C-alpha cells in the first residue's frame, strides 16, 4: 500500500491494541496480554535505537546496557524498600512517580558518559566500543553480589506503586505499556520532524558537509544518543516491572543484538518498523519452537536457533527494508 496509508494503519493498530485484552480473554488465553506487553516494551527500546541508528547513522551494539540500567534502578530501589535497608543513606522506594523518572534519568546519564566517549570515534570502532562498554556494565551488574550477582534479583515487593492505578493487575499494566509506547512514538516522530531531527539526518547522510555548514555535529549526535539511552531506560523500567525480576541477562550483549535485529527486521529509519520488528522477533522466538514441535521436528524444536540464524543472514542480504518495506511502497526519490 502507498506510504500515505501509514497513519490509518497505525490508528487501526492502536485500536487493535486497545481492544486486545478483551480479544485475548474471549480466546480464553489471558497470557497473550502479557506476551504483547513484552512486545510493547521491546518496541520502545527498538524505536529508541532506530532514532540513532536509522536517523543518526550510529550503529550502537550496546543498547541493552541502558535497558539494564533502567531495570536495575527499579529492582534495586524495590530491594531496599522490601529489605528496609538504606541506599546511600536514603530509603528504598516502590513509588513509581519517583522510581520511574529516576530510572530514565540514570539511563540517560549512563548514555551521556558512554556516548561522550564512544562518539569520539565512528565506523567499526564505534560498533566495537559500544559493545565493549555495554559488556563493562554487564560485568558491573554481575559483580553486585548484594543484588543477586549472576542469579539476578526478584522484586518481592511486587510492581511499583502508582497513585490511582493498580499496576499489579496485568491488564492495567498492559494499558500503561500501550500509553508509554504511543507517547514515546509520538515524541520520536516529533523529534524526527523537528529541526534537530533534520540536522541529525543531515549528519547521517554526510557528516563532513554538516560540519562545514557550521553545525556542532558531535553535540547533536550526543544529544540523540542520550535521548535514545533515556528511551531504552524507560523500556528497562517497564521490563523490570513486567517480569518483577532483573538479571544481568537483560544487558547481555546478545540482547543488544536482539534489539538491533528488531529494528532491521521491522525496517530501519521508519520508527513504525521497529514496532513490527519487535512483534515479529518476539513471536518468532516464542512460537518457532512450538511450530517445530507441532510438526514433530524434535531436533529443530530444541535447536530452533539453527534456523533462526540463517534466516537472519538471508533477511540482511535480501530484504533490507524489512517488514515496513513489504507493507508500504517506497515514495519517489526517497531512499
Amino acid at each position, binding site marked *: 500500500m502507498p506510504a500515505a496509508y501509514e497513519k490509518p494503519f497505525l490508528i487501526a493498530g492502536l485500536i487493535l491494541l486497545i481492544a486486545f485484552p478483551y480479544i485475548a480473554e474471549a480466546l480464553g488465553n489471558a497470557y497473550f496480554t502479557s506476551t504483547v506487553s513484552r512486545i510493547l516494551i521491546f518496541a520502545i527500546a527498538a524505536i529508541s535505537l532506530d532514532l540513532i541508528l536509522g536517523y543518526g547513522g550510529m550503529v550502537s551494539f550496546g543498547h541493552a546496557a541502558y535497558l539494564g540500567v533502567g531495570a536495575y534502578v527499579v529492582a534495586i530501589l524495590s530491594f531496599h524498600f522490601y529489605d528496609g535497608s538504606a541506599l546511600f543513606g536514603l530509603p528504598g522506594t516502590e513509588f513509581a512517580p519517583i522510581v520511574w523518572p529516576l530510572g530514565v534519568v540514570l539511563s540517560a546519564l549512563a548514555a551521556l558518559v558512554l556516548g561522550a566517549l564512544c562518539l569520539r570515534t565512528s565506523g567499526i570502532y564505534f560498533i566495537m566500543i559500544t559493545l565493549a562498554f555495554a559488556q563493562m556494565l554487564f*560485568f558491573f551488574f554481575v559483580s553486585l553480589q548484594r543484588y543477586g550477582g549472576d542469579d539476578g534479583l526478584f522484586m518481592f515487593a511486587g510492581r511499583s506503586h502508582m497513585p490511582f492505578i493498580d499496576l499489579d493487575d496485568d491488564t492495567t499494566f498492559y494499558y500503561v505499556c500501550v500509553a508509554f509506547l504511543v507517547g514515546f512514538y509520538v515524541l520520536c516522530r516529533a523529534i524526527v520532524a523537528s529541526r534537530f531531527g533534520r540536522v541529525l539526518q543531515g549528519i547521517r547522510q554526510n557528516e563532513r558537509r554538516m560540519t562545514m555548514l557550521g553545525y556542532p555535529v558531535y553535540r547533536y549526535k550526543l544529544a540523540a544518543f542520550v535521548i535514545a539511552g533515556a528511551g531504552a531506560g524507560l523500556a528497562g523500567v517497564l521490563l523490570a516491572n513486567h517480569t518483577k525480576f532483573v538479571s544481568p541477562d537483560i544487558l547481555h550483549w546478545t540482547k543488544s543484538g536482539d534489539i538491533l535485529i528488531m529494528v532491521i527486521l521491522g525496517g530501519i529509519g521508519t520508527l513504525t518498523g521497529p514496532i513490527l520488528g519487535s512483534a515479529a522477533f518476539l513471536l518468532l522466538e516464542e512460537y518457532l519452537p512450538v511450530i517445530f514441535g507441532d510438526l514433530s521436528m524434535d531436533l529443530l524444536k530444541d535447536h530452533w536457533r539453527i534456523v533462526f540464524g540463517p534466516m537472519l543472514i538471508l533477511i540482511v542480504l535480501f530484504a533490507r527494508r524489512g517488514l515496513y518495506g513489504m507493507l508500504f511502497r517506497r515514495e519517489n526519490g526517497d531512499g
Partner: protein
Amino acid sequence: MLLFVEQLLNGLQLGIFLFLVAAGLTLIFGIMGLINLAHGSLFMIGAYVAATVTGLTGSFLAGLLAALPAAAVAGVVIEFVVMRRLYDREHLDQVLATFGLILFINEAVTMIWGRTPLFLNVPDALKGTFEIIPGIPYPVYRIAIIAAGILVALLLWLVIARTRVGMLIRAGSTNREMVAALGVDIALLYTALFAAGAVFAGFAGAMAGPLVSVQVGMGEQILILTFVVIVIGGIGSVRGALIGSLLVGVVDTLGRAFVPDLLKLFLPPAEADGIGAGLSSMMVYLLMAVVLIVRPSGLFPAAAGAR
C-alpha cells in the same frame, strides 16, 4: 612479590591468547574493512575439535594438529558462503549477518557436542612446574603457551615484513582498490587471509582447552576482549594488536588479583570486596576509555583506508 610475578606471567599468557585471536581479526578489519563477530566461533571450533580428537586418540598433539585444519576449513567455508557477499556492504549488515552466523554455529556446536562443557587435561609432557626465576615455580604448560605465542608473533612479523604475500597484505591494508587494480587476485588473498586468521584463532582455542572449560559461548567472551584490544591497538595494525593484547592481558589479570586488596587500604573490607570485584572486571574497559580519550584512533593507528 612471588604472587606478583606469577600473576604477571598469567597476564602475559592471557595476552598471548588475545593476540592470536586479535591478529587475524585486525587484519580482516584492516584489509577487507569487514567486522566479523563470528571470529570467536573459530576459537571455539578449535577448542572443541582439539578436545574431541585428544579424547579419541589420547594425544594432545593429534588434537592440536586436527584443530588447525578444522578451523581453516571452517574459516574458508564461512568466507565462501557468507563473508564474500558482505565486503561491499555497510558495517551494520556485516554485524547482523555475522551475529546470525554466531547463533547458527553455537546451536550447531550444541547439537553435535551437547550442552555440558568438555574438559581437557594438560598433556603429560607439559605437566609439572618450572622455576623461571629461582623460587618461583610456574606451570610448564603455561610457559609453553607463552613460547608458542611468541613464536607465532615472530612468524607473523616475518611473513608480513619480509615476504611478497606480506607486502600484498600491507599494501592491501593501505589501499585495496589500488592493489586490485595492479592485478593482484584480491579474492584469493582475502580467502587466504581469512583462513590464516581462522588458523590462529583455532590454535588459540586448542591451546586454551586445558586451561578453561570448553563450552558454547567461550568464543564470544574472548571476542569482546579482542575488540577492546583492537580499539586500544588501532585497527589493522598487527603491532598494535600485540601491544594491546599484552596490555589488556596484564591489566585484566593484575586487576583481578590486586584491586580488591588495594581498595582495602582505603575502604572497610566488606565494601572493598564488593566494589573491588566490580572494579577489577571493569579495569580493561576503563583502560580502553583512557586510550580513547588520549588517542581516539588507538595507540598505533594503521591504515587510513581501514575506516
